[in-house]
């Protein structure tokens, strides 16, 4: 049996026995072959002793059982690491931030407690996946949509607490922002409800977010201040129709005004679907086109085109631009999508075209005009998540193909937030491509485009591969940390990261002598004096481990 550091074998055995009394001994796992299931499948420490691993796992079925587990852990000072379904691949998976922690596996808590169609909200437990919630809604023929990430196999609560993003309209794509009300088991085992849920017999827990007084929900995301056992989410009323169209532009200099126009249209809610920016001339597809490109390779890449790409700087050369114009390959292509009544979204599309028409030579094309609802069996004709349909197709994207001849064993997402401007796209390409070249990290093809999950900013996502070779992985880990620091020097910080990089990322958030970090630690000491809750998550260490890990 593995042991958490600093916990005696007697105490650990007692804790495990008491966990068994609380949840049933069949739901406590201590054998290596069981506990190994919680290893991070994309761990950058593959085949290395430093890999973050659990000592045991326990799977409660109710909030009351979670409370008992927490109280037992306090009694024996056993570190816990709660997971919802553990699908956070690329950001740490189900492995703990502190080796030796006991994973609290919440996937048996899988009830969809309520879906209110007229008010368009849901209340769920942590074990509910996007597929579960989607099917719950479909089977009852409720006229509401979920907003899901891609792939959609993860937990609705887990993704929101990790601040994941989706693909429908702007007010639902930010999964943490679209939550309304939480139930949390605090590190001392007490049960807390946030927002209106703090009122006994509350009538509006999922309808008004902040309640009265300080709004504390944020401290339970990307943190270690409690175990969220219920969470409400606002859902999108099922739209009547969907339209997707492209805006194609032929000049390199069109990038900045294109982004500026997009920002205006999105912030004014003229367009609200997921904006997807591609650069066909640079061989960079829209996210919704990734599978097709993976299977067939980018279209229209002649030898001349490939040669021009290899000599372009930051995705540009006058010759490349001329080639694009001559060949009819857009430099930039913006995919816009609209959800709503047909007459409304047609008008929105018209308005969007009018604004983009100010850019010389802008071309417009409608890709999809869809009357909703669609037959779910035909959803794969589209980028499913944009229609609120969870998918697993993303897993075929990384497969070996002519375009992707050496797929990796996994990846670590490097995900800095950068300003929503064309200039920032070019600057991020310059900074990170130079760094990647210097660090010999395979992060770029020629030019990378950011993702537009949220309004007001871009995420400049780069996948750092995980390989079978420990020496290469070590080099990539060190390189990853350098990329984090370089981003910080430019005022860019990660929005989310795997435990192995959380210290490096949080060091970037260092304004005023790391006051944010110190505030987190002050909270930690007050809320979790025994330091049993997810020690080290997002570099928030309890007092007794702080010096060692700072």
């Amino acid at each position, binding site marked *: 049996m593995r042991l958490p550091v600093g916990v005696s074998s007697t105490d650990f055995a007692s804790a495990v026995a008491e966990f068994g009394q609380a949840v049933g001994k069949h739901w406590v796992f201590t054998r290596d072959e069981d506990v190994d299931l919680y290893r991070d499948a994309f761990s950058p420490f593959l085949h290395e002793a430093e890999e973050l691993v659990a000592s045991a796992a326990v799977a409660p079925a109710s909030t009351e059982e979670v409370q008992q587990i927490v109280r037992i852990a306090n009694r024996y000072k056993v570190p816990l690491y709660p997971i919802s379904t553990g699908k956070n691949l690329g950001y740490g998976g189900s492995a703990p931030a502190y080796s030796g922690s006991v994973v609290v596996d919440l996937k048996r808590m899988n009830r969809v407690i309520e879906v209110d169609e007229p008010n368009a909200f849901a209340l769920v437990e942590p074990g509910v996946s996007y597929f579960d919630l989607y099917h719950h809604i479909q089977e009852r023929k409720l006229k509401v949509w979920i907003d899901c990430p891609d792939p959609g196999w993860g937990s609705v609560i887990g993704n929101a607490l990790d601040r994941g993003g989706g693909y429908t309209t702007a007010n639902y794509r930010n999964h943490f922002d679209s939550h309304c009300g939480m139930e949390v088991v605090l590190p001392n085992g007490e049960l807390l409800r946030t927002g209106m849920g703090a009122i006994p017999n509350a009538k509006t827990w999922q309808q008004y977010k902040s309640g009265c007084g300080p709004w504390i929900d944020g401290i339970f995301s990307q943190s270690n201040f409690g175990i969220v056992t219920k969470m409400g989410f606002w859902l999108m009323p099922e739209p009547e129709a969907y339209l997707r169209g492209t805006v194609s532009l032929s000049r390199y200099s069109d990038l900045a005004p294109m982004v500026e126009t997009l920002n205006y249209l999105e912030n004014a809610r003229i367009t609200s679907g997921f904006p997807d920016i591609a650069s066909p001339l640079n061989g960079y597809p829209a996210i919704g086109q990734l599978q097709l490109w993976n299977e067939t390779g980018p279209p229209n890449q002649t030898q001349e085109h490939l040669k021009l790409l290899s000599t372009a700087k930051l995705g540009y050369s006058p010759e490349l631009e001329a080639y694009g114009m001559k060949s009819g390959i857009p430099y930039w292509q913006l995919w816009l999508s609209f959800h709503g009544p047909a007459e409304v979204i047609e008008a929105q599309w018209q308005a969007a075209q009018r604004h983009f028409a100010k850019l010389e030579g802008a071309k417009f094309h409608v890709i999809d005009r869809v009357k909703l609802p669609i037959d779910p069996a035909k959803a794969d004709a589209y980028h499913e998540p944009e229609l609120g349909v969870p998918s697993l197709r993303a897993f075929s994207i990384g497969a*070996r193909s002519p375009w992707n001849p050496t797929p990796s064993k996994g990846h670590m997402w490097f995900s800095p937030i950068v300003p929503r401007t064309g200039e920032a796209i070019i600057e991020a390409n310059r900074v990170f491509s130079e760094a990647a070249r210097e660090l010999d990290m395979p992060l770029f093809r020629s030019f990378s485009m950011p993702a537009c999950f949220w309004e007001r900013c871009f995420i400049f996502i780069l996948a750092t591969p995980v390989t079978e070779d420990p020496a290469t992985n070590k080099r990539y880990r060190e390189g990853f940390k350098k990329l984090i620091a370089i981003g910080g020097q430019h005022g860019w910080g990660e929005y989310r990261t795997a435990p192995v990089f959380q210290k490096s990322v949080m060091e970037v958030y260092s304004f005023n002598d790391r006051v944010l970090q110190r505030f987190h630690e002050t909270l930690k000491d007050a809320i979790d004096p025994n330091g049993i809750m997810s020690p080290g998550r997002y570099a928030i260490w309890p007092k007794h481990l702080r010096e060692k890990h700072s």
Partner: protein
Amino acid sequence: MNRRKFCLSSVAAAISGAAAGLVCPPAAGQTAALPPAGSTPNVRLYKFVYDPRHSAGRAFGIAAEHARSTAGIVAVGGDITALWSRDLRPQWTAGGGAIAGMTTARTLFCLEQLAKDHWMRVVIRAEHAISEGHEIAHRLTASEPMIARLRSTLAAEDWPSKMPAALATCQGADGTPRVTRVVGSTCDHRWAMTHEELVSFVIT
């Protein structure tokens, strides 16, 4: 949903790099006798899954179709959304349903992650990789008796066609430790795997 019905972990051996020994296939024309199955009953398979984009996968699928089995058969390319959404998810939510198959490693990875949500796991894994020359290296992770049965299967020229029957002899939890062995076999041109590595498996 019975947490303890599985054999032993696949992930443990696969990720920890359990000692891999080379087991020589029987000489050409020589067929090894299948070791007798133990007293533990075979796993009842709910479905065979195969990847029709690969010739070996197609052969597996055809053989599964002709096998005298109550298990259904489903073809999956790179995307398992439909299989998951309309078939396995309701089946596994209702209490399980072992599956066997031959797919790409990436498809198995996806199925394996989903299986974990239902307290199921990979109990047999046979990674079929072209090695140097004209050989295929089969990296097997299973119990020793199961490896012995698979070794004999993989020695046959038309091993993809014989895999469904071999995988159907997978037994339930019997506490037998799982090990990893590498078995070589001649690469028949019919099974040329030029695209992605294929894996045969049982999830229960």
